[in-house]
């Protein structure tokens, strides 16, 4: 296996890099789209339930089906990595929009009320009080989205788009176990590292959250 890695270093690194981009770009897009969506679901309570329903439906579409349908819907080439990015962004949004809304809803009303009474206006209160307090919930959702994206990228290999999944297809085509093993290991490792990084970020951003646990 070491041998394989040495011989195919470039190929593997390229696959890894591609994998990271294909998995994390949708996470970024997802965050940017989910924050306002989730906020709207809280600001206008009537929107919350419909939003949760739509998110649930989107999330339940099988990934392979989405990869195949998307080119038809948005007019991309079948083999375009854009399909993967769009599909995974949809999953991320489906997961995170609800998480953001639930996170914001979990913020103690007496605290938002106190903030208002102290002279916060709505937007400043959102960024100064509500989002920071929702952060533990949001970051927990982000972990799930990130890890699931990393594994979903591999599915993309089935329709011929790169990432570490390409190593699987290659292995199957060549009846050769090593690329498959390397692909699986790296993908698991990547998911583990990403997860760990988010946990570290979480600790750095919300040192208070662990203190408050168990005390109200």
């Amino acid at each position, binding site marked *: 296996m070491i041998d394989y890695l040495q011989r195919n270093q470039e190929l593997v690194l390229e696959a890894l890099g591609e994998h990271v981009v294909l998995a994390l770009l949708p996470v970024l897009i997802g965050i940017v789209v989910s924050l306002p969506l989730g906020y709207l679901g809280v600001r206008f309570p009537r929107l919350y339930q419909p939003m949760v329903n739509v998110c649930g439906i989107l999330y339940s579409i099988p990934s392979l089906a989405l990869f195949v349908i998307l080119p038809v819907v948005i007019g991309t080439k079948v083999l375009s990595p854009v399909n993967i990015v769009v599909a995974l962004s949809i999953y991320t949004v489906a997961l995170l929009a609800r998480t953001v809304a639930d996170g914001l809803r979990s913020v103690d009303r*007496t*605290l938002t*009320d106190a903030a*208002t*009474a*102290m*002279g916060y206006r709505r937007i400043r209160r959102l960024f100064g009080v509500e989002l920071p307090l929702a*952060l533990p919930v949001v970051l927990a959702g982000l972990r799930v989205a990130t890890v699931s994206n990393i594994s979903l990228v591999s599915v993309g290999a089935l329709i011929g788009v790169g990432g570490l999944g390409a190593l699987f297809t290659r292995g199957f085509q060549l009846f050769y176990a090593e690329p498959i093993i390397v692909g699986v290991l790296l993908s698991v490792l990547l998911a583990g590292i990403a997860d760990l990084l988010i946990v570290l970020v979480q600790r750095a951003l919300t040192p*208070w959250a662990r203190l*408050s646990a168990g005390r109200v």
Partner: protein
Amino acid sequence: MITFDEVVKVFPGGSAAVDHLSMELPTGKITVFVGPSGCGKTTSLRMINRMITPTSGRVLIDGQDVTAQDEATLRRGIGYVIQHAGLFPHRTVVDNVATVPLLLGSSRREARRAALEVLERVGLPQSFADRYPAQLSGGQQQRVGVARALAADPPVMLMDEPFSAVDPVVRESLQREFLRLQAELGKTIALVTHDIDEAIKLGDVVAVFREGGRLAQFGTPRELLERPADAFVGEFVGRDRGFRSLSFDTADSVPVRPPGDAAEDGAELVLDPAGRPLGWLGPAVGSPATPVPTGGTFSSTDTLRAVTDLAISSPVGIAVRVGPDGAVDGIVRHHDLVDHLASRRGRSGAERTA
């Protein structure tokens, strides 16, 4: 001065929470809103900073209708303290306290400096500044809550049951400190409580609310205790209001005798070389071998209530007065006290008819 002018609040689908409320909260004084649960105290309080909008009527601060100002600006000029403090768990103590100065546009540094100053004011050591609220006791959190409300030095403070979530001992010390602070700061304060004792203790004036959001009586604690407006107020201020009203007289009005007069009651006060009381001897306490402790002393600045309490709880029915140096300078016998209370009652009765 905060003025309620015929204020009515009806919540959607409810009966009146506040019903034609008119009163004036004096500048620089503590006005306590007290009354049974659900009688509209919080609602009235929150109409001052526009957290609740009256259905009709007006609330004015220094003659200006609160609705005339932008609401966020108005609120930044009004300190706000709630039960359980309501501190932001994601901010350290100093950052919690710096909240309003920051909203008002102070730089981070200025805001933190102001915060540290006010923390010291409320008696919290610097070492607490960088803790999170979850690392504080309930009493400490409440202090931070008061500090947070004071940080921008607002002329008006609203406090909704600020001391009710802590145990009685801590509450007592918070109340004492609060009065000390207010003596220094002279804010115009509206404070809500459902505890009549707290109202009597803290209020310069007290507004007693009754069911349906109506004002039952508005007056000084003394007026409330000695001249309740009606049976509801009389009942609400409690059965031992006579005893409590003794708090309004100082002990210097009580007739004091020389310590030797205790012999008439069959007791002898034993003193140490500095003249401080060691305890009672003699037939009144069963002539023990060692003096029986007096159970406390008073000085002329204490209240009549303290003297009465001492006389009742004393093993010989005698309260002991001491001077500034702790040396005994007189005694008050039970009988003399009763006579004094009786004459006092005659006097306040005469005042009432006058």
